[in-house]
């Protein structure tokens, strides 16, 4: 429909959404303070991320002091320490054993001694491994402290077998057969009726590989008071084996014991050992055969560490985003804006697009610089930074920029609803920064409310920065304060977007309904 013009000589200007975007962009860039504030936000993110406030000793005392653990067959960081009672197996063969007991010791609460206690992921059983080198391929059948019989392989693989714990009254039979590169695990409750648990193919097995019995028990960590602060120490597990039978290419010599990956030094404690008596083999070990985890039972920081300045940038961006709307009300410009564009929803949409795009661009520059350079700074200061894939790094950088952009849109919508700068700025900072502060930075909240905040508050969006994987077969405090969010990266970001969508919907409704 052509509008009727009061001066027929003047052509109607274009009035599409593109023009609206251009108008809002001109409004944004013509306020020097906002442009400067955006630059300040970028600089704050970079400065806080590159400021070397953290130091470590990794790699500082020669090549042997590097903190990187062994790498598994899949290229991931692994823990590989256990007590290994082994003999060579040439070509194909089979090992069968009965386990009658799995007991353990864990550190006392004071951390000075040991007391009786079994870790849920304490493990004892039979294993065939490519070599005694840490991180080499393996397949194992084992009884565990609290998760029944498992077949595990190559660190990340985990298959369930018989449930229930092991005891003299209720023993478990385990069997592992090798045929070339293929290993098959069986379990049985009586030694006659066998169930196949799984079959795996290990890459690069030599003809002769070590195989035998093992025991290990992971680092003990206790959360005090249901809080996320943790203490702990190494634990031990002891397995008792009997009715051992070997078939196939096993060598005829005796058993050799090795503590694989035993930490050196006097503080490390006993690495374990084994004893043979009256047809029984007792193996004690400490450590774990599992993917490495950060946090309580591990060490190092993630690349999200370099992005801590995002919170300073976020506060500046929220202030600008709120002013982008409230300054229209204060100066009365909103009446001109709405007279020029009576479809008010489109005004808000145009503002959101301009603000979101500007913030995304600023955030992208800042986080790209800080993630790439910040890792180098941290490593140069001897801090172990968990390696990530290039794809994850791109996701963290783009995701952080997107979180900033969506937060700016939430601030814009809140400002439209409240029309008061102070209340709008405070509300947005409180709903985004405070949950992060209480769940991640200073975890003073009990785990229940902390978990709920990390799932449902807008701070869930910071899940997009997580690069660590949670493994069900590794006990750890998987709390946001250790870098583990309850939601997957993009699911957390979707929660933030849902908040933005609700805020925008309310803002659009009120902007249409109310007088300006």
């Amino acid at each position, binding site marked *: 429909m052509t509008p009727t013009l009061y001066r027929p000589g003047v052509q109607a200007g274009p009035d599409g959404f593109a023009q609206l975007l251009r108008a809002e962009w001109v409004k944004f860039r013509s306020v020097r303070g906002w442009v400067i504030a955006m630059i300040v936000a970028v600089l704050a993110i970079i400065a*806080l991320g590159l400021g070397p*406030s*953290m*130091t*470590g000793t990794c790699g500082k005392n020669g090549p042997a002091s590097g903190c990187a653990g062994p790498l598994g067959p899949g290229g991931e960081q692994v823990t590989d320490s256990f007590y290994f009672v082994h003999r060579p197996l040439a070509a194909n063969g089979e090992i069968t054993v009965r386990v009658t007991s799995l007991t353990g010791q864990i550190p006392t*609460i004071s951390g000075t001694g040991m007391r009786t206690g079994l870790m849920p992921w304490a493990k004892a059983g039979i294993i065939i491994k490519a070599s005694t080198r840490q991180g080499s391929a393996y397949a194992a059948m084992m009884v565990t402290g609290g998760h029944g019989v498992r077949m595990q392989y190559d660190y990340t693989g985990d298959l369930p077998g018989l449930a229930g714990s092991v005891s003299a009254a209720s023993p478990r039979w385990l069997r592992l057969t090798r045929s070339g590169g293929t290993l098959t695990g069986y379990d049985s409750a009586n030694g006659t009726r066998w169930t196949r648990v799984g079959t795996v193919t290990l890459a690069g097995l030599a003809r002769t590989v070590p195989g035998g019995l093992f025991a290990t028990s992971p680092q003990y960590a*206790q959360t*005090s*008071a*249901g*809080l996320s*602060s943790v203490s702990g120490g190494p634990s031990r597990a002891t397995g008792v084996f009997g009715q051992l039978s070997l078939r196939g290419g096993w060598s005829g010599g005796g058993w050799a014991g090795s503590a694989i990956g035993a930490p050196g030094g006097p503080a490390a404690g006993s690495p374990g050992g084994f004893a043979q008596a009256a047809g029984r083999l007792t193996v004690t070990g400490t450590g774990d055969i599992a993917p490495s985890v950060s946090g309580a039972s591990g060490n190092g920081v993630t690349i999200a*560490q370099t992005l*801590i*300045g995002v*919170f*300073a940038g976020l*506060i*500046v961006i*929220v*202030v600008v985003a*709120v*002013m982008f709307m*409230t300054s229209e009300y*204060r100066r009365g410009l909103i009446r001109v804006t709405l007279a020029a564009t009576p479809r008010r929803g489109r005004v808000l949409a145009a503002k959101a697009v301009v603000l979101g795009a500007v913030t995304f661009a600023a955030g992208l520059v800042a986080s790209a610089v800080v993630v790439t350079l910040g890792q180098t700074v941290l490593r140069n200061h001897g801090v172990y930074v968990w390696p990530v894939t290039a794809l994850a790094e791109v996701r963290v950088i783009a995701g952080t920029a997107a979180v900033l952009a969506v937060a700016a849109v939430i601030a814009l919508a809140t400002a439209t609803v409240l029309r*008061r*700068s*102070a*209340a*709008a*700025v*405070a509300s947005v*900072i*409180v709903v985004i*920064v*405070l949950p*992060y*502060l*209480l769940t*991640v*930075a*200073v975890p*003073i*909240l*009990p*785990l*229940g*409310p902390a978990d709920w905040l990390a799932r449902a508050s807008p701070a869930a969006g910071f899940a997009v920065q997580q690069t660590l994987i949670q493994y069900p077969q590794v006990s750890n405090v998987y709390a946001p*304060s250790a870098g583990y969010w309850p939601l997957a990266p993009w699911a957390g970001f979707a929660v933030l977007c849902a908040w933005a969508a609700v805020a925008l919907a309310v803002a659009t409704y009120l902007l249409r309904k109310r007088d300006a």
Partner: protein
Amino acid sequence: MRFLHAELVKLRTLPGTVWLLLAVVALTVAVGSITAAAVACPASGCGLDPARAILSGIDLSQAVVAILAVLAISAEYSTGMIRVTLTAMPRRIAVLMAKAAVLTGLVLAAGTVGVLASVLAGRRTLPATSPAPYSLANGADLRAAAGSVLYLALIGLLALGTATAVRDSAASIGVVLGLLYLFPVIASAAGPDWSRHLQQIGPMSAGLDIQATTGLRSLPLSPWAGLGVLAAWAAAALLAGGLLLRWRDA
């Protein structure tokens, strides 16, 4: 005295003052009792500080106090009222002092109600397995409760001083909340030495040490010294705000 009356009338008639004061009370109580109810202590022992849990609502309600304090001065700038005020009362420092006194009175009142209600509610919701019952008859618990009220008042003064210096309400509240929240966030990502220093100088992390009743030895600062750090921040902000108010055109 007339200064005080004038400032009280202005603050009372601001749209939202009553709501903000009610929000201080409501948020302090709600967050505190939810947190206290969620405390789960294993039988083996509990390192949780019951006072911190019961009074955790302060973490949130301080933001509302900051809004109130910022509005007390920036509302005058946004409406041009400040010129009338300074014409009627040319002693500018006295105007700021009167504002500070009225604001402190209101925040102390709301804070006292909020903290007392939190203590009453929190004592009911804190599980029986908590290491020690929370009681105002206990010296440390009383210090945590009374100190939390003072903490809110000092946050109000810090925000008032900042807003007097910055003048724009959005920028002032951004600066205040940045000062409060950024220190502990950045401390969490810093190494142990830096982290401790940041917690010692941050107005929120130092000031909230007043709530600690357990593990006092591992605190970066003793409770009263921590509140003293916040008081120093508030004094510095008021001084900067007062001097700028005196030197600048309104």
